[in-house]
């Protein structure tokens, strides 16, 4: 037993072996620390905020993140200079293209130059019909301030909609204030271009484009709710 112990000590004190072990552990350490720091950086990165909309034809969020090479070709090909590439302080992952509807909405070009410019498939370059685009969905978020709910016939959102009477219709309802014309968004035709949000006359828009998963309910049972 003692002899065995002696033997082991002899092994560890072999300077070459010590050096090897030290190097191995050093490298493991570097990789481990690097991975933890890097991974936490990736996980804590600002994800896309709800008001930052992707250009037409964009893949779903996570897929988009992995496919987009941040080259900005879509931005350069946007004839209205609406798209921007996110920098560090912006509400989308760095270097990725986005636009804010309230500032400048998508003009829904028929030839979709931004999507055509994409080399990687982050935007679908084969898309032919801009009306099939899904940048989000307009939602009338505030019934208290919307002028049409107050009985005035503002209807600006309906009038500016590029797919008028399909994406937004005015639905008459009878209330104690009289007959109201309620702007109603049809999520199957709304492309989320944001023109309605841009032109809402209130100082904060009552109608806003949201990512589909935030803007829409889904019928069926709530698995985390009442059992």
């Amino acid at each position, binding site marked *: 037993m003692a002899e065995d112990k002696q033997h082991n000590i002899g092994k560890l004190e072999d300077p070459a072996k010590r050096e090897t072990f030290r190097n191995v552990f050093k*490298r493991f350490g*570097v*990789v481990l620390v*690097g*991975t933890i720091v*890097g*991974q936490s*950086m*990736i*996980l804590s*990165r600002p994800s896309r905020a709800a008001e930052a909309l992707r250009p037409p034809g964009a893949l779903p969020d*996570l*897929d988009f*993140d*992995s*496919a*987009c*090479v*941040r*080259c*900005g*070709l879509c*931005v*350069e*090909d946007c004839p209205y200079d609406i798209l*921007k*590439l996110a*920098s*560090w*302080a*912006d509400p989308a*992952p*760095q*270097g990725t293209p986005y636009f804010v509807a309230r500032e400048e909405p998508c003009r829904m070009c028929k030839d979709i130059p931004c999507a055509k*410019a994409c*080399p*990687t*498939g*982050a935007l679908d*370059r084969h898309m032919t019909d801009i009306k099939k685009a899904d940048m989000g969905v307009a939602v009338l978020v505030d019934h208290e301030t919307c002028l049409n709910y107050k009985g005035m016939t503002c209807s600006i959102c309906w009038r500016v909609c590029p797919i008028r009477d399909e994406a937004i219709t005015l639905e008459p309802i009878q209330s104690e204030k009289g007959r109201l014309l309620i702007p109603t968004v049809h999520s199957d035709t709304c492309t989320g271009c944001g023109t309605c949000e841009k032109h809402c006359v209130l100082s904060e828009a009552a109608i806003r484009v949201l990512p589909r998963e935030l803007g829409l309910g889904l019928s069926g049972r709530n698995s985390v709710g009442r059992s």
Partner: protein
Amino acid sequence: MLRLGRGLYRHRWLLTRRTVQIVILLAFIVAIPGYGKIAEGNLASSLWFGELKLTDPFILLQTFFAGSTIALPALIGALIVGGFYAFLAGRLYCSWVCPINLITDLAYWLRKRLHIKGNMSLSRSLRYWVLALALALSFLGGTLAWEMINPITRFQRELVWFSFSGAMLLGALFLFDLLVSRRAWCGHLCPVGAFYGLLGRYGRLKVTATPTESCDTVGCSRCVTVCPEPHVLAPVVSKQAQSVTSGDCTRCGACLDECHEGTLSMKLDLVGMVTRKAGK
């Protein structure tokens, strides 16, 4: 006049290199009236003359690791770029294309000018670890890990889109190279250089030494002094090899500008390619 001519000749590689670098940079920025820009996009992916689509193979590799399927235009672009560097020399990118080289070379030049001696020594193999880490994190995070930092495309985005909020990183990089560690970024840390170094490991464009005795008799090693990756010249100077074969060589030509003995030259070694194959 003669002095100017000699001065130009003494810096012929440097001047050519800077010209190429700046022309490439300007191609992305300056819009020619009536034509537009020569190149659109940035070094991640670009469209040249409205026709030629080029894509950075390292960035595309990250998208692959992040779990994205690779689209055809990007793949073709990356094959063109990758093939070019694999054939000639990978790190040509570093010294002839990359805009960060302008910043780090400026830092090094200032460092010499200001006699800044302090140097934190870093391992030259650190960049391969950063490279591995970038790919591993792309895989784990499902995003392009290096593109969150990459000062190359950031530099272009800052310049082309005039959004200055990321300029801090470039400043930090400059100061680090200037004050903390000599040639830290390009020579030790940057995984893009590491990637291109590996890609162009067997590139055919080589700094070659014609066997003369002048090196010994004069006893000069100025080529090694000016080389940004001095270890690549060691086998040549010690006469163990006839040409620089290390993938770390950026073919910047600093050694050629410095060599007044006519020993070193840049050669396209196509014969070596054939004999290597025959040897196998």
